[in-house]
């Protein structure tokens, strides 16, 4: 019925791998057209680049042409640098609109007779001031070699090889590359008479330091959280997985922002099809700006008509490392501490890194609690509405009397009351979230305590309703992933409406519909509800329950590739034989080996 749904997952391993390939193949078929287009675009700076040239710069077009005339006549390529330093600097100035933070520092090198005009160009704030001064400008000025007489080419070589004491240096010939590097914080060395420019990597500037995570807080585990810097973030993961198989691919996305985005995966563990799929989807993105990983998330997810997140995001390096080791692919985006992980499955949003750090029995109990919490936050008010307006017979009599007594004075029907309270609560939450921390606390006190108490005392809202709303609200806070909690918040209203119309019948139908919907979702070809549906028995141990760490045999079969062995056999700790009960201990040992 749907073309891209031609696979299924049984528990047969062989089958599944074959199937996933099939899925990917079909997926490619579906997107063939667009891939072809992007391939055309890639190597040559064809239409796309031209558009860029003419697009944003149309205003300066006439000026540019005049500059071209006044400058060198030998314009082999429109994109190439000019030979004259003055013309180059002029172009840079015009292109950046004379912005004061683009610093142009002319330096004279060469012997006294044959002075060679050079200039260092960089963007203030993006560069590391110290390295510019110490290793670039100072070296250029004081280097003995450069005091000799030099041709531009020779000077270029000398500077490149001997002078600049900075790790990354390369030459650029095209304006596009030049500006891209300049704007990403590299320093530019231009020499009069050369068609090349040198690019020294001096990225730096002020950045937030590594701090504790604010969203995925864990009691136990690393206190590091990602920062806004892509390099730092990647390094943090590298520090955890010290393995050359941790591969990174980077690209720039966003026509205007040219945001650096990189894919990280572990070669041999991540499934090639999934990596390819992520890469293809990322390459297809054609948008002017990428401001946060949320942009990417929305542009690469499988289905847009859903409130459920099909890409996982986290700001914890250990969470990323753990998921990479399960075979997932991480997408880092410069400028945000949130790293995307794909493919994501539903149950993943109920798991936290801490589950693996704590003992399994405790983690299992907590995971059960989380699913319960999610369920409460989803259907809490709906059950109240259904029970009080349709199925009064299902409430135990004593409770029914109490609720009835409370409802006596309430002027609204239960549904309206519930909607009022839920909306009020959402307002409170939103207000508390956006305000400064100090005021936020006040809002929650005024809102929660004063309004709640007053509303009950005034008889506008029944206390039972308030309790239900409060429990629901707390439950939605307790879900470990904000992304899934917020979708539950939204769906809750749908449940309330259906419960208000048809009681439990409506509620149950809505629940079944939700399940159908969840089952129809996929994340990068992986069924969203796996390993619950389709059920993969060997992996049920890491879903709502978490089996002991020593029993984790394999990586998830839908996600991980060939290398699926996670740990050796017989990982169960065997303490040395202790005092007494020797017979028993020996017997046990025999059983296990």
């Amino acid at each position: 019925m749907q073309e891209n749904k031609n696979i299924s997952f049984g528990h047969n391993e062989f089958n599944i791998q074959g199937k996933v390939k099939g899925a990917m193949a079909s997926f490619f078929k579906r997107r063939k057209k667009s891939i072809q287009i992007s391939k055309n675009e890639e190597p040559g700076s064809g239409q796309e680049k031209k558009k860029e040239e003419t697009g944003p710069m149309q205003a300066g077009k006439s000026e540019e042409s005049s500059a071209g005339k006044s400058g060198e006549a030998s314009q082999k390529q429109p994109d190439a640098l000019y030979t004259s330093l003055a013309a180059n600097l002029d172009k840079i100035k015009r292109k950046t609109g004379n912005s004061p933070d683009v610093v142009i520092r002319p330096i004279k090198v060469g012997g006294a007779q044959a002075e060679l005009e050079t200039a260092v160009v960089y963007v203030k704030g993006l560069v590391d001031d110290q390295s510019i001064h110490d290793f670039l400008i100072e070296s250029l000025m004081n280097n003995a070699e450069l005091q000799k007489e030099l041709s531009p080419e020779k000077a270029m070589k000398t500077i490149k090889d001997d002078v600049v004491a900075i790790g990354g240096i390369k030459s650029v010939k095209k304006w596009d590359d030049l500006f891209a590097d300049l704007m990403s914080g590299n320093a530019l060395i231009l020499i009069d008479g050369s068609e090349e420019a040198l690019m020294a990597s001096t990225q730096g500037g002020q950045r937030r330091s590594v701090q504790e995570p604010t969203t995925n807080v864990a009691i136990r585990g690393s206190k590091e959280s990602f920062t806004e810097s892509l390099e730092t973030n990647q390094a943090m993961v590298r520090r955890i997985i010290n393995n050359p198989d941790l591969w990174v691919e980077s690209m720039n996305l966003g026509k205007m922002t040219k945001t650096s985005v990189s894919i990280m995966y572990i070669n041999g563990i991540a499934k090639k099809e999934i990596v390819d799929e992520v890469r293809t989807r990322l390459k297809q993105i054609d948008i002017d700006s990428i401001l946060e990983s949320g942009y990417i998330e929305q542009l690469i997810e499988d289905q847009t008509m859903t409130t459920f997140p099909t890409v996982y995001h986290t700001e914890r390096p250990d969470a990323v490392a753990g998921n990479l080791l399960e075979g997932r692919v991480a997408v880092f985006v410069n400028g945000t501490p949130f790293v995307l992980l794909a493919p994501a499955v539903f149950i993943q949003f109920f798991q936290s890194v801490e589950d693996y750090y704590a003992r399994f029995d405790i983690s299992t109990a907590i995971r059960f609690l989380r699913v319960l919490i999610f369920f409460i936050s989803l259907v809490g008010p709906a059950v109240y509405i259904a029970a009080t307006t349709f199925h009064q017979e299902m409430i135990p009599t004593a409770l029914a009397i109490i609720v009835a007594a409370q409802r006596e004075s309430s002027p609204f029907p239960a549904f309206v009351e519930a909607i009022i309270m839920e909306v009020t609560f959402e307002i409170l939450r939103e207000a508390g979230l956006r305000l400064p921390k100090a005021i936020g606390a006040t809002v929650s006190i005024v809102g929660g305590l004063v309004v709640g108490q007053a509303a009950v005392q005034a008889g506008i809202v029944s206390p039972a309703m308030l309790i239900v709303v409060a429990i629901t609200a707390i439950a939605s806070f307790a879900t470990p992933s904000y992304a899934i909690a917020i979708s539950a918040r939204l769906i809750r209203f749908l449940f309330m409406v259906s419960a208000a119309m048809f009681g439990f019948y409506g509620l149950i139908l809505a629940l079944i519909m939700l399940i159908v919907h969840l089952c129809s979702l996929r994340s990068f070809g992986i069924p969203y509800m796996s390993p619950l549906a389709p059920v993969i028995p060997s992996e049920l141990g890491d879903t709502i329950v978490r089996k002991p760490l020593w029993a984790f045999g394999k990586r998830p079969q839908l996600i991980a590739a060939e290398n699926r062995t996670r740990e050796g056999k017989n990982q169960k700790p065997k303490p040395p034989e202790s005092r007494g009960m020797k017979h028993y201990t020996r017997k046990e040992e025999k059983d296990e080996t």
Partner: protein
Amino acid sequence: MKRKWILFSTMMISMAFLSGCWSKKELSELALISAVGIDRDEDGNYMKAIQIINPGNVSSGLQGGGGGQAPGVTVITAEGKSIVDVHINASAEISRQLYHPHANLIVIGEDLAREQPLNTLLDSFDRNAEFRNTAQLVIAKKSPAADLIKVLSPVEKLPSEKIYKTLDVTEKMRGENITVSLQDFIKTSASPGIEPVLSSFTLEGDVKEGKKQENIQQSQPETIVKADGLAIFKEDKLVDFYSGNMARGVVWILDRVKQTDVLLDWKKNKDAITYSVIRQSTSVSADTSKDLPEITVNVKAEGMIRETEAPVKLDDPNVIHELEKTAEKEIKEQLERTVKQTQNKKTDIFGFGQTVYRKDADKWKKLRNNWNDDYFPNLKVKVNVDAFIRRTGLRTAPNLSEIKEKYE
């Protein structure tokens, strides 16, 4: 994709239309019924007393509310040709929709129960999904059912709750009543070879006083409702009331006794020793090999000595053994008396017929037609009792024995 949207909007729009909502009822628009009492007046109309909960007066702790000022229930009465008719007529007296599912008590007047087979009376309760089949059924002894419902009760805020809980407790402690739900009653009356029994309640005092709030504002209420044995049915009509040991005998044979006390004679001291049965199990078996089946009732009781008014050496195992024998004899006698008397009434409330049916369905086919009148009264019923005394409380010998020794 677009069509999916159409489908979705279709659903949403059609739902929006429905927000008028059939079957919807707000809790504050309902009159929660806690108990129903049914009688019949002289003209043959049904009279129904409906006890409605005033939630505000029942649940305390609410602002301004708090029980005690006004009664927790209101009783309205109505008449009609059929039960449903009465129900509809009653709604003229109350501003809210009468809501049955929380009614946990149905009281039937003695006169009505004697005249009409209860099964037909209860049809509307059973048929209607709104009634809970778990509601308890009791008989009002010597007074109209309506009176039982009207009397306010001390301790419990809801009179229905009072009766309901009394029944529960007295079944557990005394073993002279059994809780019979609507469903149990119908099940029993429809099953072959067994006749139903119900618990009965009586009124002590004046109804007029009992209706007033003052009744429960004194330390000793003027009027009170109390559990009083069993009502025995034959072909769904009330035939007799049992109380005391007779009632307990019935409950015992039905294997519903949980705890009870048996008074034992000890060496000329009548009822001198109280033997408390803590646990018991009773089974009825039938021997269908003969023309007329023979019934054996096996009782196994286990308990302790609670009270002694005669000097007994309770630390002596032989004495204990002797006491056990006495208890066995006593229980056996009581049960045999109960069976004998019931056989005279020609109604098989013990379900001996059912036992036969379950044992030997072919045999039962031959007997079933005149079971109650011909075969049941002539059954040979054997009662075997095994009574065990497990412990004797905190003390061994009664203080009496020492006193006696002192004076002797």
